[in-house]
């Protein structure tokens, strides 16, 4: 992004430019207040050591503040929640990294084949893989639950990870990216008798790193934030991920706002850090996958 692009507003030294900037600030501020305001309130309430009781006028700044709510929630010392968020955090981490690993391996392999190899039924198969993007988990969760029940996969970590690895989006992304790479190096390696897998592993994977980072971040954040599949497949609280724990927790303790907000903040903050710092990678995935098709 160049820093000296044409702007629409007049020079800030002119009156008109000042007015334009002020109105832009007013507009952005209102939207930001509606977007982030509730989260500031969340942060503030989560720090209230004495909890939050709505009074008139509302108190939104902690009188006594500290991290006791975070500690209580993390260790499971909050009434009605006998389990620490530490465990849910570990589960979320396991599900997100497990699914990301599976997606990166299988999607890059498949993406390479769809981009470079001619094989019988390729186009039909690719179309079928793409169509999976449209399939909603709603149609799958009953049969998958019943099937996984038969195979002993309900209430297991593997069972919870599997449905997060089905989307064809990553295959599409990998294929699109590989198609932009020059083939000369691959052709030369094939001539020299390198195997297809050797070409994939030694030449394509190293060149694919930016696309792998993009797909990895998108998958990790999506699985971390996943709610429906863990809700359906984790019958035991020991296997809940953070969003599911949060969903049940808020149902149980609808008036214990301070610990609930601490729990929500702990779920959200790692993803805000990851998303904000990696936003360029994240967007590149959508631009490559969505627009240059």
């Amino acid at each position: 992004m160049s820093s000296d692009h044409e702007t629409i507003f007049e020079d800030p030294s002119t009156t008109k430019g000042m007015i334009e900037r002020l109105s832009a600030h007013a507009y952005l501020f209102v939207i930001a207040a509606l977007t982030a305001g509730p989260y500031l309130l969340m942060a503030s309430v989560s720090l209230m050591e004495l909890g939050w009781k709505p009074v008139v006028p509302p108190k939104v700044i902690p009188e006594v503040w500290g991290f006791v709510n975070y500690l209580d929630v993390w260790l499971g010392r909050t009434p009605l929640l006998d389990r620490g968020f530490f465990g849910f955090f570990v589960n979320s981490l396991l599900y997100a990294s497990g699914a990301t690993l599976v997606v990166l391996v299988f999607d890059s392999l498949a993406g390479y084949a769809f981009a470079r190899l001619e094989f019988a039924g390729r186009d039909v198969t690719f179309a079928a893989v793409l169509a999976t993007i449209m399939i909603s988990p709603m149609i799958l969760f009953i049969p998958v639950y019943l099937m996984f029940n038969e195979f002993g996969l309900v209430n297991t970590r593997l069972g919870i990870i599997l449905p997060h690895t089905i989307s064809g989006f990553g295959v599409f992304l990998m294929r699109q990216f590989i198609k932009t790479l020059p083939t000369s190096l691959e052709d030369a390696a094939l001539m020299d008798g390198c195997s297809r897998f050797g070409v994939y592993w030694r030449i394509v994977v190293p060149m694919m790193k930016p696309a792998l980072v993009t797909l990895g971040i998108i998958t990790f954040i999506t699985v971390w934030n996943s709610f429906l599949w863990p809700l359906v497949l984790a019958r035991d609280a020991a296997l809940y991920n953070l969003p599911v724990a949060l969903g049940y927790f808020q149902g149980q303790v609808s008036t214990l706002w301070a610990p609930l907000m601490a729990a929500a903040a702990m779920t959200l903050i790692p993803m805000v850090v990851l998303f904000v710092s990696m936003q360029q990678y994240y967007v590149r995935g959508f631009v490559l996958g969505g627009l240059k098709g």
Partner: protein
Amino acid sequence: MASESQESSLDLNQSETKSRFSIDNLTLSTQESIQGWLFVLGKIAIILFVIGFPMAFAVYLSFTDSNLVNLPGEFIGLENYVWVLNQDVWWTSLKNVFLLGGIVIPTNIIFSFSTALLLREKLRGSTLYRVAFLIPVSGPPIIWAIVWKLILFPNEGGIINAALLELGLIGSYLPFLSDTTLALPSVIMSQMWGFGLSMLIYMAALAGLPASVMESAAMDGANKYQKVRYIIWPLMKPTTFFLVVIQLVLVMRMGFGAVFVMTQGGPLNSTMVPSYFIYQLAFQYNSFGQSAAAAILMFVVTALIALISYKPLQSNAEYYQ
């Protein structure tokens, strides 16, 4: 380039070379086919196991009276579909989700385009605004509902209630989440602020605009609002189409987390959405057959939306070579 006289002998040669080549081709392409399938095997296996077979199973279940204790149930034809289509709550849920999409999708486009455009202007504090817009989309949508419940919650008066009461605008607490007219707007309100990702996509598209476009517009003395309306906005058409279509295809999934947290579909089903209806049928009433039928009806609606929006998306993709 063969002359008439040599035709017969050439013909022979050609057929010989042709057959030799075709044998080679066959072996090569068979090899490549096997390799190709080996590469895609892992992904295909997962898709068959978690999508292919379950989809077929879902269709089968939808024609049976399966439930938790009766599995797989008796074949009962279209009875489940008739039952779902005769439920008022099914139609309410469809109406609600389209209302939700009808408000969330246009506001998403308006907020994301306008903020992306304004954040180009090198205003002071741009980074702060950007982070503020990205916070909701970073985390699980269920948190949108939790923080908005904190603001709207009715039992002892949430923050909006407290403020309105202090200002003397209301005499008693408004039951935002338990009143049949206020609950749905409250749920929709909680879903309107997740436009950050669309904003980033617009920003990427705006950054990709050729500088000459803007310069020529400036030279022509184009008024800046006309510049936005008649130059930038039309150039963003493929991006806008992409964002609208993606959200339209996903519209049937909207609101599950919010409804789960804020209202459980109530009061009196006034905030029911199809996804929560299907979930409730399956896991509260254990009525797998009816739930599967509703899920397949939902899938049909999604497929129709995708089918209708596919053509315009295709033609607009041409903008990007």
